C-alpha cells in the first residue's frame, strides 16, 4: 500500500524532475564557464599570432580577418564574409589559412596537415581561433549577407542544411530541424530558427569540458558530417563556409560572448 502511494508520487513528480534537471544543467554550465580554461587557449593563440613562422619567417599580425589588416577588435563577429582579394566568402579558419599561405609563404598542404588537434596537443587553428574570437567579445554578430557572393553562399548553405544524403539519408535538419528535441540530456538547437541559432553562434568556437579540447566551427561541421555518415567535407571548402554563413546569418544580432564552454 505504501509502495503504491510512493509510486504515484514519483510519477507525478516526473515533469518537475525534468525541469529541475534542465535548471541543474544550466547551473553546471554557469559553473564551468566561470572556471573555464578558455583564457589559457587565448593566451597561447596570442603568442602564435605574433610568432614568425613559415619560409618567410613572418607573423600573422598583418592578416586581415575582416576588419582590416591586423585589426582584431570585433573582427570575428563580422565573419563569414566576402573578401575582395580572394573573390570568395571566407570564415575565420579559411581566412587564417589564406594568411598562412600569403603572409608566411606556407603551402596549403603543410598548413592543413593538422587542423584538428586533440587534448594532448591542440592545433594551431584552435589556438588562433580562441584568441581571435576572444577579441570580439561584446560585438554584435554581423556576418556578410549583402554582397552577391555572400547571398549565393547563404543560399548554398541553406540548401546544404536541408539536403538529405549519405547511407542514413540524413541532413543537418534531421537533428537540428525541430524545436524541443534532444539526444539524451543534450538539447538540440533548431538551427534554422534565429531564437535557437543566436546563442549557438555567440558561443562558438568553444572549449569542451568532457574531453578537455578546444573546438572550432570547421570542426563542428566536420564532426556533424561524420555523425551523419557522410564523406568528410574538405577543410575550408566552399560548402563548409556556406553552411557556416547560413548558421551565422540565422543567429545574427546576438552579442558575441565566446569562446564558450560546453559540457
Amino acid at each position: 500500500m505504501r509502495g503504491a502511494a510512493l509510486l504515484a508520487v514519483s510519477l507525478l513528480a516526473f515533469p518537475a524532475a525534468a525541469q529541475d534537471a534542465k535548471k541543474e544543467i544550466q547551473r553546471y554550465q554557469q559553473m564551468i564557464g566561470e572556471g573555464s580554461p578558455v583564457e589559457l587557449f587565448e593566451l597561447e593563440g596570442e603568442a602564435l599570432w605574433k610568432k614568425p613562422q613559415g619560409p618567410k619567417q613572418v607573423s600573422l599580425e598583418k592578416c586581415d580577418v575582416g576588419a582590416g589588416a591586423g585589426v582584431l577588435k570585433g573582427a570575428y563577429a563580422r565573419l563569414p564574409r566576402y573578401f575582395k582579394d580572394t573573390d570568395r566568402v571566407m570564415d575565420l579558419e579559411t581566412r587564417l589559412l589564406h594568411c598562412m599561405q600569403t603572409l608566411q609563404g606556407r603551402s596549403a598542404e603543410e598548413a592543413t596537415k593538422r587542423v584538428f588537434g586533440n587534448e594532448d596537443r591542440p592545433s594551431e587553428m584552435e589556438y588562433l581561433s580562441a584568441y581571435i574570437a576572444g577579441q570580439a567579445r561584446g560585438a554584435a554578430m554581423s556576418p556578410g549577407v549583402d554582397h552577391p557572393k555572400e547571398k549565393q553562399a547563404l543560399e548554398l548553405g541553406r540548401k546544404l542544411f536541408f539536403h538529405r544524403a549519405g547511407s542514413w539519408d540524413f541532413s543537418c535538419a534531421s537533428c537540428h530541424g525541430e524545436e524541443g528535441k534532444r539526444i539524451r540530456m543534450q538539447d538540440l538547437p533548431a538551427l534554422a530558427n534565429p531564437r535557437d541559432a543566436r546563442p549557438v553562434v555567440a558561443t562558438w568556437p568553444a572549449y569542451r569540458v568532457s574531453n578537455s579540447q578546444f573546438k572550432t566551427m570547421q570542426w563542428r561541421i566536420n564532426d556533424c558530417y561524420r555523425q551523419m555518415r557522410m564523406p568528410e567535407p574538405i577543410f575550408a571548402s566552399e560548402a563548409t563556409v556556406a553552411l557556416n554563413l547560413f548558421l551565422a546569418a540565422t543567429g545574427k544580432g546576438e552579442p558575441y560572448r565566446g569562446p564558450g564552454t560546453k559540457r
Partner: protein
Amino acid sequence: MAGPMKMRATLAGGYTDVRVLMTHPMETGQRKDAEGKALPLHFIQNLTVKVNGKTVMEGQISQAVSRNPVFFFRLRGGAKGDKIEVSWLDNRGETNKTETAIA
C-alpha cells in the same frame, strides 16, 4: 616548457577573491598511448600562494585533479595593489608561477 597561467584577484569587502587558471596535462598514469604503453604520471604536487612575498598558503594536490585546473580561494584581508603570487611544482620538478596585483 610550462604553458600559460592566468590569475584574477579582486577585493570583496574585507576579503580577496582569487581565481587562478593553470595549464598542465595532469596525467593520471592510468591512460595508455596508441602502442598500449602507460603514459607516465605527471601532475602538480604543490601549490604555494604568497602575498607581498610572504607565504600565506601551501597546498598539496594529486593526480585526481583535472587537466588545466582552476582554483578559487578567498584570502582574509588584502589591499588594492598587494602582490599575489601563485606557483606550482609538479612531480617532475617543473614549476611555473604567475603574479598579479589585487584589483
